[in-house]
């Protein structure tokens, strides 16, 4: 019974201030031994900062941390590991060219033989249902296997508390189920688990208790199994849960066609594409599901024009554009929201007005080679207004207004709203979006998804590439899956389900 177990970790009044923002403002958190405790919150709610404080990556400016009843100061991750705290990060820290066993050896203190270690890895992986081959190189592993290697690495340190930061964002539905089994087994043996996520259905399925954070403060502690998803969401975002609405839309003529696209890999870890064929019609949303690293990046580069291919492999309406660069394809009505927001979709150090100019320059912002800055500022201001982009506190609105804010000072969700807005306001004929709501908070995700649906209703052809199966099923009319550089057959969303798509994500359509 988790509620009666002794308290393992107690945080009280934790404060963390950064020069421009207070990330944590008096946060409280209790974790009992052997419980699976969710930390639920939107992006920017302070979840990551709180976990970093527990794992010793950041030092809080105030508040107390008690570990098994005694106050502690966790000065760095080494100190955290000595206490028995382990953390699986969202982005794995594994060396691609080393084997699983070598990677794990690097993280463990003391000296031991690699063969012994491999034996222990196999033992732990068998005990918790985490199949991992210690002798394989990391670059050969799928994302799910890498995550298992990370978890095994943590488990070998016999932690009393395991922190999992957004662990399911890269897993197939089947792999998620498998991970949950592992976590439940660990909890039964007395290991506490802090499960950080914004996915409500997972938290309701897995967790005993949930601490909800909003804007760096506690917004309640609840039993997620006893609450409705809508109620949880309301607590998390502070208002009622936005719902997307599909509008009636008719499928028109094909606007984007990829025919027999085959490409060699563009690097040692690149993926080759094998005769990809797809058609996106006006007024429909085609989704491409699948785990990242199965050729999506390569396909997107070929569609967007960042990588040029032979002319007829990519067509916009009936015009072959495979040989054109990204700018020339934009001129023909293609818009693209890339997966990486900072550094690709937006220049981090530049203002929003400058970032509007980046791709929307053709919308009357350049005359005779000179930039009409007021026009760029007006365009940025329009994106900010229409897409509800929050550009930080009043202290940031300097002389140039909101459009003078640097892209890097926006939160992930707000930057994504800006980028999506910038592309949509250009009124494209074909819109391509990669991971449109990855790492974006609930309210922003709902807004972005609704805009995608509205755009389809207005007759735009839309291609959405996403790892988030829930998102694909929510916004798409038809869906295909990428695995191993190949594209599965295309299905109507109404004729398929998560189980079939999940099997395809693991390569099931290739037989």
């Amino acid at each position, binding site marked *: 019974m988790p509620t009666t177990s002794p308290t393992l970790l107690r945080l009280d009044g934790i404060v963390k201030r*950064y*020069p*421009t923002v207070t990330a944590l403002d008096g946060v409280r958190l209790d974790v009992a031994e052997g419980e699976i405790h969710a930390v639920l919150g939107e992006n920017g709610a302070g979840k990551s900062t709180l976990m970093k404080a527990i794992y010793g990556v950041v030092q809080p400016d105030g508040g107390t941390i008690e570990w098994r009843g005694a106050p502690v100061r966790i000065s760095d991750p080494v100190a955290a590991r000595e206490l028995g705290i382990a953390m699986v990060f969202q982005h794995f820290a594994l060396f691609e060219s080393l084997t699983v066993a070598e990677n794990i050896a690097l993280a463990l203190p003391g000296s031991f033989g690699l063969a012994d270690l491999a034996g222990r890895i196999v033992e732990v992986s068998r005990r918790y249902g985490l199949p991992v081959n210690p002798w394989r190189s990391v670059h050969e592993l799928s994302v799910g296997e890498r995550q298992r290697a990370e978890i095994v690495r943590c488990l070998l340190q016999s932690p009393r508390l395991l922190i999992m930061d957004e662990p399911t964002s890269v897993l197939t539905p089947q792999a998620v189920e498998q991970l949950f089994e592992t976590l439940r087994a660990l909890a039964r043996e007395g290991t506490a688990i802090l499960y950080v996520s914004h996915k409500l259905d997972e938290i309701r399925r897995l967790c005993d208790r949930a601490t909800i954070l909003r804007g760096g403060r506690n917004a309640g502690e609840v039993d997620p199994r006893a609450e409705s998803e809508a109620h949880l969401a309301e607590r998390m975002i502070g208002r009622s849960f936005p719902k997307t609405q599909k509008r009636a839309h008719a499928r028109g003529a094909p606007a984007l066609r990829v025919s027999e696209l085959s490409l060699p890999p563009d690097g040692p870890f690149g993926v080759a594409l094998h005769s990809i064929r797809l058609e996106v019609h006006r007024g429909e949303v085609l989704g491409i599901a699948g785990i990242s690293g199965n050729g999506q990046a390569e396909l997107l580069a070929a569609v*967007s*024009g*960042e990588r040029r291919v032979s002319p007829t492999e990519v067509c916009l309406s009936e015009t072959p554009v495979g040989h054109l*660069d*990204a*700018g*020339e*394809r*934009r001129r023909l009505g293609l818009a*693209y929201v*890339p997966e*990486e927001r900072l*550094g*690709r*979709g*937006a*220049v*981090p*150090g*530049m203002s929003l007005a*400058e970032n509007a*100019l*980046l*791709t929307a*320059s053709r919308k009357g912002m*350049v005359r005779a*080679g*000179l*930039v009409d*800055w007021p026009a760029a500022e007006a365009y940025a201001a329009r994106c900010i207004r229409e897409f509800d982009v929050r550009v930080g506190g009043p202290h940031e609105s300097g002389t140039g207004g909101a459009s003078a804010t*640097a892209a*890097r*000072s926006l939160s992930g969700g707000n930057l994504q709203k800006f980028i999506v807005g910038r592309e949509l306001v250009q009124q494209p004929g074909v819109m391509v979006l990669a991971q449109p709501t990855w790492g974006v908070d609930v309210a922003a995700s709902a807004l972005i998804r609704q805009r995608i649906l509205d755009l389809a209703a207005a007759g735009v052809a839309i291609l959405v590439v996403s790892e988030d199966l829930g998102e694909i099923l929510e916004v798409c009319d038809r869906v295909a899956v990428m695995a191993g550089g190949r594209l599965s057959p295309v299905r109507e969303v109404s004729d398929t389900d998560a189980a079939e798509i999940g099997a395809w994500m693991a390569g099931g359509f290739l037989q």
Partner: protein
Amino acid sequence: MIRLARRPAPSRVMLWGSPLVAVALTFALGAAAFAAMGQPPLGALHALFVSPLSDLNGVAELLLKASPLCLIALGLAVGFRSNVWNIGAEGQMYIGAVFATGLAIHFQERWGVWMLPAMIVAGIAGGLAWAAIVAALRAHLHASEILVSLMLTYVAALIVKYLVFGPWQDPAANNFPFTVSFEDNALFTLLANYLGALEGTRLNTSVLLTLAAIPLAWVFMKYSFAGFQLRVAGDAPAAARYAGHSEKRAIWIALLIGGAAAGLAGVTEVAGPIGQLNDRWTPGYGFTAIIVAALGRLHPAGIAVASLLMALLYIGGETAQVALQLPRAIAYVFQGLLLMLLLACEVLVNFRLQWTASIRSSQAA
């Protein structure tokens, strides 16, 4: 103990403050160096930095030296903003001077008033041509523009030597390595001809070109779409590809603007105070301009101020030689110190100094 702590955002104060800190540290270390050599530090600094400006002629000489530095640095700054590191402005300046000299000595008085404009065009073309080699190798063969532009500087220097020791040598020069002196129509007019107050100074109309170039560069960087594309290419190459800006075009523009400015600076020298081509007419303007561009934060106004400071170092070096019997190389010591400290202080933009140990509260530097 001092620790570097990353700032959450680059400091706006330090963006401009760090060059000032570097200048202050340069003066401090320089004064210490003078003291070590047995010179009274304040007197030496006075000789270096104040006494050259004590009369009109000194100020005129300062402007004359600052002008080519400023011109070259303006061109380089455009490239530096797009992360294209043209280190070979010196060579591009040589070739600009060679092209202009070719016209001046072969067509002499035949072209009348058109001679100087033609030389300006030829000089720019020379700088462009030399930079084009770098651009072609970088854009199409991925050769490092840093190495290629630097090595081409030595090629350019040898070309100048070959010409002034060989085919272009003044027959009346007793085998000294220089060309004939340019005719009046191949020289920039002295400003003293228009402004009596400048009587006796060597200041000429070429400084007007530099004065015009400063706002031009500012407009290019702030208002031109090409300038914007260069900045994107420098800040975030992936974003430039995503937006469909041509990477090759950015490399070409960045190098050609630097080459053109350097070529023009070459003309202003040979058709200005030098009045001929010889094998040792430049005190390294092309290299010093790199420091000027960095010191001026790649901003035209900053560059204008920085070029004055670096020119002062050149002139002060000469004064120090006369007044204190110090080697002229003292100017280069200061240049080196300044560049090194400039790069070191750059860290203050993104980091702040923290005194750790027993003091828990962090102190900003």
